């Protein structure tokens, strides 16, 4: 469950990033978002509250019934539970029926209601919340059925009631919501199913290996019970994922939300899971072979290794499957490398760089540790720290290098769009900025410890030892920030001056979004494309438009297609006070008066 929640948070974050990047990189042709009234929103909120309250009450009452008449029943029970559940049903059920009838009428009378924000939000919450409750309840019920948990009739009642609530909303969603509005719901369900599946699969494989090799991870928990619980988690997660992703969401064409899902699940979760599992497992092996293991025997030292290997394998599978989704052609963008591919590469580079930095810091720490060993009293041997650092570098460097090599190859083949892309510039600036901030923090730490010992008259080898972490962070952060700052400066100098001069291009009469994307990619400017409404279809050439834009003095350009070819008009949209003149409405033929008292002739 924790993994599912984390996946959802990541999905939201990456989705936000993709939306911002796309909005920043091309602001053309986005339809105005449909605004729903406050009244409509409150109606749906009321229905959702009624449904949740009624379901809680009904599940509680059914649980009490099963507890009393299907098992031995409670030893002592008050009347509070029955009163609460009764109140929930007595109030919630009529309220839900009443509001439901109002909304049913609205959905029947106005087809646009099905595409409203209120309906999409309601049906998403009305399926996802019951889904989460039902998944947990089914898991608890399976625990009882498999004999690993005590009898739990209340969980069975919750599973029955909330599954029914989910089923009703799922069928409503399938029947009423247009396909393109159902994507958020399907992706949320897919993320929940995927997170649960991964946790269950790691537990199943890890505990199976534990049993096969005679290992026991938790001293007080039977591995057989752990395996049964993990198998139940896997069964539930796989069912939800198959229904939501495999049967429905997987067939969706690439779009912002599906790309965000693929990036969150594959790039972020996949790489983090894979790197953490691999680094930990490799360092266990290195410490056992070359270092000083603290455990008495191999069974104790390697008790986590099966689960770490399973985690690493799960990360690799997540990365492989979801990265493959980004290779599908997008429905709206032109073929080739787009921002989602750049986000994939630069996010991978960041994660690889992070693992590499951790390895670098630990290497410096191990070095200082070894140099100042004479004042050490106890703690992890320097060799073990160095071996963990080596493991982090062995995993982090290839991950960073593979992603960075892809990005650099794109820089060589299409230098203009790649270097001008928001993602690459953000990556370089962010890595430099974070590196500088971390280095400054570490420097303050170094100077503080030095001054503290200096003022106390106690600058010894122990001072250097206590500085080992701050020194490691300082060295690595400064190196990373310096390298990326140099690269950013070099790339900024390489950008042609003319391309930088034009900030905004308006293509009047060009309706093809692909053309706008192409012009934006070549010029690095923001491009707005207005389609013609008279049906005339003149042929636009992206290369001609880009040449005109490059030759224009700027700072903004309006391009109009004439029978003789494209015509570029340099304008300045920032100087609206001069350019925009309000013309008062006057009768035809009468002279119009300008705001400053002069006469403006309109034609």
């Amino acid at each position, binding site marked *: 469950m924790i993994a599912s929640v984390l996946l959802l948070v990541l999905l939201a974050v990456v989705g936000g990033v993709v939306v911002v990047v796309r909005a920043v990189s091309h602001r053309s042709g986005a339809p105005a978002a449909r605004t729903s009234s406050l009244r409509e929103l409150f109606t749906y909120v009321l229905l959702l509250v009624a449904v949740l309250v009624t379901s809680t009450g009904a599940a509680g009452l059914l649980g*009490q019934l099963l507890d*009393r008449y299907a098992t031995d*029943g409670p030893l*002592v029970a008050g009347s509070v*539970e029955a009163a609460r559940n009764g109140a929930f049903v007595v109030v919630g059920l009529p309220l839900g029926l009443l509001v439901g009838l109002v909304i049913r009428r609205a959905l029947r009378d106005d087809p646009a209601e099905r595409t409203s924000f209120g309906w999409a939000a309601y049906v998403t919450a009305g399926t996802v919340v019951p889904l989460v409750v039902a998944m947990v309840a089914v898991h608890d019920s399976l625990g009882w059925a498999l004999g690993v948990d005590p009898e739990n009739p209340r969980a069975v009642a919750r599973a029955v009631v909330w599954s029914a609530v989910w089923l009703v909303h799922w069928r409503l969603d399938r029947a009423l919501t247009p396909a393109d509005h159902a994507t958020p719901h399907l992706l949320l369900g897919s993320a929940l199913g995927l997170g649960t599946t991964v946790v269950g699969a790691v537990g199943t494989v890890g505990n199976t290996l534990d049993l096969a090799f005679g290992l026991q991870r938790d001293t007080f928990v039977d591995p057989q019970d752990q395996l049964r619980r993990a198998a139940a988690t896997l069964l539930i997660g796989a069912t939800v994922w198959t229904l939501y992703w495999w049967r429905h969401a997987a067939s969706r064409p690439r779009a912002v939300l599906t790309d965000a899902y693929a990036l969150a699940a594959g790039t972020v979760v996949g790489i983090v899971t894979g790197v953490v599992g691999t680094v930990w497992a490799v360092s266990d092996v290195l410490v056992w072979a070359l270092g000083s293991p603290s455990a008495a025997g191999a069974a104790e030292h390697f008790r986590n290794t099966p689960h770490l290997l399973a985690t690493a394998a799960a990360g690799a599978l997540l990365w492989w499957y979801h990265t493959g989704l980004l290779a599908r052609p997008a429905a709206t963008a032109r073929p080739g490398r787009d921002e989602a591919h750049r986000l994939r590469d630069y996010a991978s580079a960041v994660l690889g760089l992070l693992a590499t930095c951790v390895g670098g810091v630990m290497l410096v720490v191990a070095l200082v540790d070894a140099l100042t060993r004479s004042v050490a009293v106890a703690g992890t041997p320097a060799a073990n720290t160095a071996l963990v650092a080596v493991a982090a570098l062995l995993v982090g460097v290839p991950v960073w290098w593979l992603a960075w090599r892809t990005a650099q190859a794109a820089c060589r083949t299409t230098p203009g769009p790649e270097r001008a892309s928001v993602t690459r510039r953000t990556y370089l600036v962010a890595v430099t900025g974070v590196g500088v901030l971390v280095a400054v923090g570490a420097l303050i730490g170094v100077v503080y410890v030095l001054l503290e010992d200096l003022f106390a008259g106690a600058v010894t080898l122990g001072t250097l030892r206590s500085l080992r972490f701050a020194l490691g962070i300082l060295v690595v952060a400064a190196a990373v920030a310096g390298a990326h700052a140099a690269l950013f400066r070099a790339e900024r100098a390489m950008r042609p001056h003319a391309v930088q001069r034009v900030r905004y291009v308006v293509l009047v009469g060009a309706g093809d979004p692909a053309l706008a994307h192409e012009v934006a990619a070549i010029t690095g400017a923001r491009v707005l494309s207005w389609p013609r409404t008279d049906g005339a279809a003149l042929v636009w050439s992206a290369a001609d438009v880009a040449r005109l834009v490059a030759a224009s003095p700027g700072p903004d350009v309006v391009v109009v297609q004439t029978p003789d070819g494209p015509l570029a008009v340099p304008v300045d949209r920032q100087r609206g006070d001069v350019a925009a003149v309000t013309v008062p409405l006057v009768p035809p033929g009468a002279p119009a008066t300008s705001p400053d008292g002069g006469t403006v002739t309109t034609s």
Partner: protein
Amino acid sequence: MTTIGPDRTGERRRALIPVAVVLGLVAVLALVLYAVTRPAKVWDPATPEGVVQTYVTAVLAGDTVTAADLLAPGSPCAATDLDRAYLSRDTRVDLVGSTVQGTQAQVRVLVAVDPGPDPLGGNGEERTFRLTRTTAGWRIDGIPWPLYECTGRLT
């Protein structure tokens, strides 16, 4: 006899459906509420479960003298310890299981406070009562729930 005007019997019947549904729901709800508010099953006081049930019921009712009578003779706890215990009046105690081995018995219960705040059902914690068979029947040993420490002093 002839009927004047359109026949509205079908419409009237259809109009009765919602009324019947509402009445049915009310009847089901009343039945369920009656079923779940009946007194809990009373266990035989000669069994470990019955002793624990009597003890827990007395503690929750504030009858600490009756509860203390069910403590084993060598118990470190007394009625004064139970007087100091804080309990919510909304406490529910479910029987999880029991084992008897000769003169020793264990009764495991799940203590939950209603209304449970967790819709996912995570409320409640398991407690174990240890009992010894004496000449007076099963008696509770050790420091039983809801106590965590006992002085054993009667004043």
